């Protein structure tokens, strides 16, 4: 009897893996068609002539910052020459305990000003607002510490323009990212409420003066794995999700939001660990519930670079925090899951999130740990075991390779070393790395210490990253 149960569990796991990989391949194929179409226009790669200053809506770039003294000035400065006709920068100092504010004041000749703070969104108390009088249009908000979501809300409150690009302090913006993102908005101003961008890990690449000089794949395994992960999701999943009109997540590192829409749904949720996913899903829910036609899109050409955890310790904190955020979101949006009322969001992408992201650790845990034991005790025959391995490794590798091929159109990672590193990573990923992340996420699901606040990245500062490469 016991054996019977184990066998069914085993087959169930195999079926789960098969469905998951098939889903990913389906997404990859759809993403391929989407990217191919857009790639035609990137041939000349110039700033589109249509975004001359009268057609391009002005944008507020909102940058929440906590203890970023080491790189904040460099970062803001390099962001300030992003190619876009009209924009302002709003940096929010979320009660840093280091010299973030002081460095900003000194570098940009900031002066404290008395302008009324309009709390369209509720936030923690503001300590002061500073304006720069130099060539960079920059406003800095100093406030009490209350987390990233709260800081973003404060930034949005002060933002003057109808669109807000929410990003992070340790991000390097590609020169054309804002133009490319805003192009999607200008195409359909009435309906587009948000645009997500394409995030690439910076580790291992050559950076000079806050700008990317050469993209390379890191030698170290931990960041390398993440390069592969990011390529898979941003090239082989998100374009497809957006094409279905059901993008469930716009990453915090790059999201252009229509300010009025953000206010309508009440801004970012303070204290949430996955505030970016939460806001995106609330946008879907709000517009569908109120029958307001809308679109949330993804722009693959809006590329930005950011530092990802270099070692397992920091990575673990990040993954636990992400999964906690996902847990909160799953709980909040349970009514939407598999609910036909919410169209592709409810039935496909959020369902996919629930099944293949949220439940994945549990089922994968069974797959990696229980199934081999079952086979060893004879409950599961060799055939099943082999099938599981083939599907898990083989199809997983398929997805990675397809994603890498889709990545070709971008032209990064040109050397033989880069390619071989990525391919080797794709092959060994399932021999340990994936299992570790499963383990961490199980931990997140079933308790463990709360990982609060910003999650200290232990950053070296984007400015100090890899002239040598990692």
């Amino acid at each position, binding site marked *: 009897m016991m054996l019977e149960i184990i066998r069914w569990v085993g087959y169930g796991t195999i079926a789960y893996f098969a469905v998951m990989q098939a889903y990913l391949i389906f997404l990859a194929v759809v993403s391929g068609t989407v990217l191919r179409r857009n790639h035609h226009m990137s041939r000349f790669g110039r700033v589109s002539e249509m975004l001359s*200053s009268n057609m391009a809506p002005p944008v507020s770039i909102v940058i929440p910052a906590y203890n970023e003294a080491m790189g904040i000035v460099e970062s803001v400065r*390099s962001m300030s*020459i992003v190619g876009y006709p009209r924009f302002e920068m709003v940096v929010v100092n979320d009660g840093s305990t280091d010299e973030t504010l002081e460095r900003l004041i000194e570098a940009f000749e900031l002066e404290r000003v008395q302008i009324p703070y309009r709390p369209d969104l509720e936030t923690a108390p503001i300590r002061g607002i500073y304006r720069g009088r130099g*060539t960079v249009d920059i406003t800095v908000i100093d406030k009490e510490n209350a987390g990233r979501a709260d800081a973003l809300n404060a930034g949005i409150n002060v933002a003057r323009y109808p669109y807000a690009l929410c990003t992070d302090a340790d991000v390097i913006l590609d020169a054309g990212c804002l133009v490319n993102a805003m192009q999607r908005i200008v195409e359909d101003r009435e309906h587009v409420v948000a645009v997500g961008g394409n995030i690439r890990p910076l580790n291992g690449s050559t950076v*000079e*003066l*806050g*700008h990317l000089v050469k993209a390379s794949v890191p030698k170290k395994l931990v960041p390398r794995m993440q390069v592969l992960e990011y390529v898979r999701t941003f090239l082989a999943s998100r374009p497809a999700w957006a094409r279905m009109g059901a993008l469930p997540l716009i990453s915090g590192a790059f999201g252009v939001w229509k300010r009025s829409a953000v206010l309508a749904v009440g801004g970012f949720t303070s204290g949430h660990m996955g505030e970016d996913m939460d806001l995106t899903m609330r946008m879907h829910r709000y517009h569908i519930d109120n029958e307001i036609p809308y679109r949330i899109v993804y722009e693959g050409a809006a590329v930005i670079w950011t530092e990802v955890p270099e070692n397992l310790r920091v990575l673990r904190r990040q993954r636990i925090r992400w999964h906690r955020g996902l847990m909160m979101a799953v709980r909040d949006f349970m009514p939407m899951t598999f609910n036909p009322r919410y169209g592709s969001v409810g039935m496909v992408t959020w369902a996919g999130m629930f099944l293949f992201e949220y439940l994945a650790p549990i089922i994968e845990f069974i797959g990696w740990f229980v199934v081999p034991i079952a086979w060893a005790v004879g409950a599961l025959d060799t055939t099943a075991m082999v099938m599981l391995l083939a599907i898990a490794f083989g199809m997983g590798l398929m997805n990675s390779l397809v994603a890498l091929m889709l990545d070709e159109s971008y032209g990064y990672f040109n050397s033989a070393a880069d390619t071989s590193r990525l391919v080797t990573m794709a092959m060994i990923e399932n021999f340990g790395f994936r299992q570790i992340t499963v383990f961490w996420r199980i931990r997140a699901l079933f308790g463990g210490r709360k990982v609060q606040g910003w999650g200290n990245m232990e950053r070296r500062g984007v400015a100090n990253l890899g002239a040598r490469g990692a």
Partner: protein
Amino acid sequence: MSRTLRILVADDAETITTLLMTSLELKGYEVVTARNGIEAHEFGMNEEFDLVILDQLMPGLSGLEVIRKWHDEGIDVPVIMLSGVDDEKTVVDSLDLGAVDFVRKPFRLPELMARIRQRLRTVESDGTEQQADDKNGSAGR
């Protein structure tokens, strides 16, 4: 005085640097190129130039910031600033700091060359006057 005149061309667009470098070298000038603001600033600090052609929008330091830094460090060299930016404030600020000429992009090559020649003529004539003074003693002419 017929030493070769040295020009620094700083622009992050390769098209512009190649175009200007080729044209100027064909006309007999010695050209050094910089690809960003920081490189430009360093070249200006460590080497002598008779003229600098500076792009306003560059990675690292903007053209305006480069001029400002040179100004603070006492480096005085004629500058022609190139800009695609429609920014009145930048024009005024840079003229204040002594940028000699302000040229909008896209530029007319012959016109730019003419302005360069004119600027360098001033430099050259200043040089010859100085030589004449030295020869005749500093009591003036």
